[in-house]
């Protein structure tokens, strides 16, 4: 069973690599969105440092949201989703594998370019470690919640816009605690409670979002 999950992760990675540019576009969106802020609000260093964590987090959540169509949409359109549903492996495990592949393709690249953007935003050095840590805990949660949204909107009219309406409100707690952890680190306060809550969100999202996404996938292919 684990082997099947590994195969699905590999398949998604291979597909993304062969289609090439897809993962890169999301990354570019992330970088460009953050770059717009210094141009929009002015390049005063203190102001940018104050806004940095929030801007990076918002941009990361928006980029994750843009990449959600890759999660199930292609499989739904070419029919491979129905074949996956027919397989003897529980659908929940398949969803876990799909989300893991999605995170490897979007979450991980976002985390890798984040330090560069933190330099752009003139963030204090004390915040870097916690910024990466909060993204490391937060981006998998955004992939999991996004999987629910992606599965719910399969076959809907204007699904891409609809998914933002469904998913962004659910991202708000993630954003609040992600940013407050970095602010605490910069202000010299304890980051433990914020990171623990982010970890709790991840632990809760793994079973709950997997269940909700599988339930909606079953309905989509009924």
């Amino acid at each position, binding site marked *: 069973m684990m082997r099947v999950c590994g195969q699905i992760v590999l398949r998604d990675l291979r597909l993304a690599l062969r289609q090439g540019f897809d993962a890169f576009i999301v990354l570019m969106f992330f970088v460009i969105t953050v770059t717009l802020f210094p141009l929009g609000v002015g390049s005063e260093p203190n102001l940018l440092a104050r806004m940095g964590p929030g801007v990076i987090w918002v941009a990361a959540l928006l980029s994750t949201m843009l990449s959600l169509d890759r999660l199930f949409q292609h499989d739904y359109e070419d029919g491979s989703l129905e074949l996956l549903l027919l397989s003897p492996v529980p659908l929940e495990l398949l969803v876990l594998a799909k989300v893991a592949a999605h995170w490897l393709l979007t979450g991980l690249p976002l985390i890798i370019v984040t330090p560069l953007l933190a330099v752009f935003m003139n963030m204090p050095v004390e915040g870097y470690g916690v910024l990466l840590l909060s993204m490391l805990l937060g981006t998998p949660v955004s992939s999991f919640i996004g999987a629910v949204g992606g599965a*719910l909107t399969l076959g809907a009219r204007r699904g891409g816009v609809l998914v933002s309406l469904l998913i962004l409100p659910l991202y708000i707690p993630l954003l609040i605690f992600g940013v407050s952890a970095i602010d605490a680190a910069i202000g010299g306060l304890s980051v433990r409670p914020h990171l623990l809550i982010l970890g709790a969100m991840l632990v809760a999202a793994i079973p709950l979002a997997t269940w909700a996404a599988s339930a909606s996938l079953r309905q989509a292919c009924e």
Partner: protein
Amino acid sequence: MPEILRAKIDGNPYILPMFRFANPNRFLRIGKGIMPWSAGLSILCIGVGLYLALFVSPPDYQQKETVRIMYVHVPSAWMALFIYSSMVISSAMALIWKHPLADLIAKASAPVGTGFTIICLATGSLWGKPMWGTWWVWDARLTSVLILFFLYLGYIALNNAFDDPARGAKASAVLALVGAVNLPIIKFSVDWWNTLHQPASVTRLDVPAVHSSMLWPLLLMAFGFTFFYVTILVLRVRSEIAAAKIRNIQLAEARG
């Protein structure tokens, strides 16, 4: 439904009582009985409640006359939570037992809940200006109610996003369950975070911290709002059933 089948369902101890109400025609009959009563009680409660709230109850020693906003604000906040909770329960029933009316009840509740959430946010904002000196603060409770408002909108949007109404109903039922995580956050936000919004003063386990001259109009308004919700719910479910019948007739005609 044929008489024999109905007798079988009614007499069968293995059929859960809730399925006896799964028959739309029975719902229509019961709804017809309930509606005049709930509509009358709603008008009566809101009328008496408003009179007590606006003329009889004393002004607050700190907040003066603005405290009267509370008699609309607090019950509508309760209703916003209560209606979402009932949507969650009926969505769960629709998903687990495929109860045919539960879908309709969840769908019919959503716009009413959205309305109460708007009233709650608007009156809260009007109350916040004289009391806190600002229309809006990004405090935990205000933000979580705003999220509830977005969840309602998302539910309605998803419900209408599919060409097949059954698929929309199922997808939005899952969304309602996912959004249920927000309910405890709203309820306990004033206890978990030290916020500008005051903690609960009526729904406490010990004696409420509100004097009876203010508690009575508050409760009357809450009951009035609840009866209003029941009235609108019956009305909307009736029209949903009628719309489904019309759709079936049209389909049958199109088939020839």
